[in-house]
């Protein structure tokens, strides 16, 4: 691949900045490196993406997991560039491409608010739209504005195939603007943000998995459907049988497999690759912490919690850590959209910088609990061997970092 001098210099600058960032413990390097490169060459993304098959993955929940799944599958075709560290803003995307300049394939998760900035430059072969729900309303704004922006981006990409979850009316509305879609009935357990039709504002009517609006906006017929643990498509039904737990991960797998098949991988091969995954960016794995065996889970908004609550073992103590830094959203009101009442009957510890907001929520849920700001200290103070630790974004990152250091 021929790279213009300006881009090569930009990448060299980026590597220096990333190394500096890592050396001084400021971050993992990906973000700052990308930021420097974009400053030095604003077209660096488009140059680095040229001549590759690029897949972008966006949505409120499941980006990191789906990107990991799809990258594992596409590795059967060749080397894949991936922003596995979750750095999903333009600088993180650029850093992933710059570190793998020769990979013919790229699977990149992108923050919902930055799809325009990234997609306009990279002109991806596929854009995967997972789901849209309330998340960090103070930073992201309302979810309908995100849908309208995605719809506008999609309409500017005539050669991109959009792989979309047609059980989510907001995602469907955005995807309909595409020239080509692969519809996946991946399911959705959170409906609270899509009552008003994205196209006309009237009420969406639901009947089982089907939904429609009087304006004519209706659920498209899916090519792929997630039915319990089976992924079905006309003529075949394949069991997923994942190591990763929960309905949400089965939905992520359905999206990844549908995309991979569109790109030429046989479905059986794709599912086999996804099955081999047992942890995603430190999530779902068990790790020893302060003498306990801790399972780390990420949940950062009401829809995510809805998928996480059923995964928790009903007899195992739970530590919940919540922060409200910029990447988490400053507004903690969303804790009241989570049915924490279901945690009653097991020891619960409220932790993190916003432990007190959670403690008040648990009080009103009549769930007995204790408060320990430091999540690791919270784990240490518990009886018994096994502990579930559920954290939102920066709280999770903090715990994972300290576990890596110990």
């Amino acid at each position, binding site marked *: 691949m021929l790279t213009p001098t300006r881009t090569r210099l930009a990448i060299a600058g980026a590597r220096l900045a990333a190394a500096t960032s890592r050396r001084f413990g400021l971050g993992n390097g990906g973000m700052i490196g990308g930021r420097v490169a974009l400053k030095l060459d604003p077209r660096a993304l488009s140059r680095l993406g040229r001549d590759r098959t690029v897949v972008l993955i966006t949505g409120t929940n499941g980006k990191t997991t789906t990107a990991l799944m799809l990258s594992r599958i596409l590795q059967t075709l060749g080397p894949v560039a991936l922003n596995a560290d979750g750095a999903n803003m333009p600088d993180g995307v650029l850093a992933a491409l710059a570190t793998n300049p020769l990979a013919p394939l790229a699977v990149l998760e992108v923050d919902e608010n930055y799809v325009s900035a990234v997609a306009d430059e990279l002109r991806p072969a596929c854009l995967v739209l997972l789901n849209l729900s*309330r998340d960090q*309303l*103070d930073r992201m*704004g*309302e*979810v*309908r504005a995100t849908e309208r922006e995605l719809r506008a981006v999609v309409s500017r990409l005539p050669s991109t195939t959009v792989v979309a979850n047609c059980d989510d009316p907001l995602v469907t509305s955005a995807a309909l603007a595409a020239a080509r879609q692969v519809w996946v009935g991946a399911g959705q357990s959170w409906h*609270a*943000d899509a*009552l*008003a*039709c994205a196209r006309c*504002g*009237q*009420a969406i009517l639901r009947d089982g998995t089907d939904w429609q609006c009087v304006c004519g906006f209706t659920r498209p017929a899916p090519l792929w459907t997630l039915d319990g643990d089976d992924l079905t498509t006309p003529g075949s039904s394949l069991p997923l049988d994942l190591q990763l737990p929960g309905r949400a991960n089965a939905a992520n797998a359905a999206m990844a497999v549908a995309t991979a098949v569109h790109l030429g991988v046989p479905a059986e091969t794709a599912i086999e690759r996804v099955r081999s995954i047992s942890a995603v960016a430190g999530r779902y794995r068990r790790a020893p912490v302060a003498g306990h065996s801790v399972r780390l889970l990420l949940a950062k908004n*009401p829809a995510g919690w809805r998928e996480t609550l059923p995964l928790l073992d009903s007899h195992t103590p739970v530590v919940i850590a919540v922060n409200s830094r910029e990447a988490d959203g*400053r*507004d*903690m*009101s*969303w*804790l*009241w*959209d989570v049915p924490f009442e279901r945690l009653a009957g097991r020891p619960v510890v409220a932790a993190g910088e916003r432990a*007190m*907001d959670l*403690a*008040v*929520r648990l*009080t*009103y*849920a*009549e769930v007995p609990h204790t*408060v320990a700001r430091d999540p690791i200290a919270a784990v240490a103070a518990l009886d018994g061997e096994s502990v579930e630790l559920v954290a939102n974004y920066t709280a999770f990152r903090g715990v994972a970092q300290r576990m890596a250091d110990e």
Partner: protein
Amino acid sequence: MSESAVRIGLVLPDVLGTYSDSGNATVLCRRLHWREIPATITEFHYGEPVPAGLDLYLLGGGEDESQTLAAAHLREHRGLQSAAARGAVVFGVCAGLQLLGTGFGTTDGVRHEGLGLLDAETSPGDRRAVGEVVVQADQGLGAEPLTGFENHLGVTTLGRGSRPLGRVLAGTGNGDGTDGAVTGRVLATYLHGPVLARNPALADLLLGWVLGAPLPALPLAEVSALREERLRAGGHRG
């Protein structure tokens, strides 16, 4: 109060639930139960009739389209208006405040008729007000400062038929240094949080209106600690 249990109505939580204000119903219900006063929560959704016989109605925040749907539904099914006319307590937050007023404008430039229970008119401002808010409630509406989180574009102007809930010490509120609107037993604010979780005195003020007498204190150490933390985050000293 007409029956033995306090009947709390959660108004269209499916469209007015974006900012988790349904938590206000949980707070009110628990604060009654803990004082051994029976209480029930009735949720009614978009498309369903609006019961007129409840004691207290709660309206939360929502996005433009949802707020417009809610306003149209409540103009057509007038249970809330008849309940307010016979003295039921009505509490609105954000979009709830706006649609209880005379009218509100959405970003597409359209003005929508409100329910007219408050003399408050809302139009879109220049930029969203987002962040922690501290409000000093006006006389008779609470002694302790109110803490909450706001996230709205609307700027609200009160007419003579309503007075503000209080004066903004930090944040934006209505946009003119005041927050909220009060007419009789209809009270509204821009504060989320949910606001009644962070401000138990305001919750008990509303419940006192319903029961016709002030409620005994209900100290909760964690709520006090949260208030202190949030008031400090809002830049309020002392």
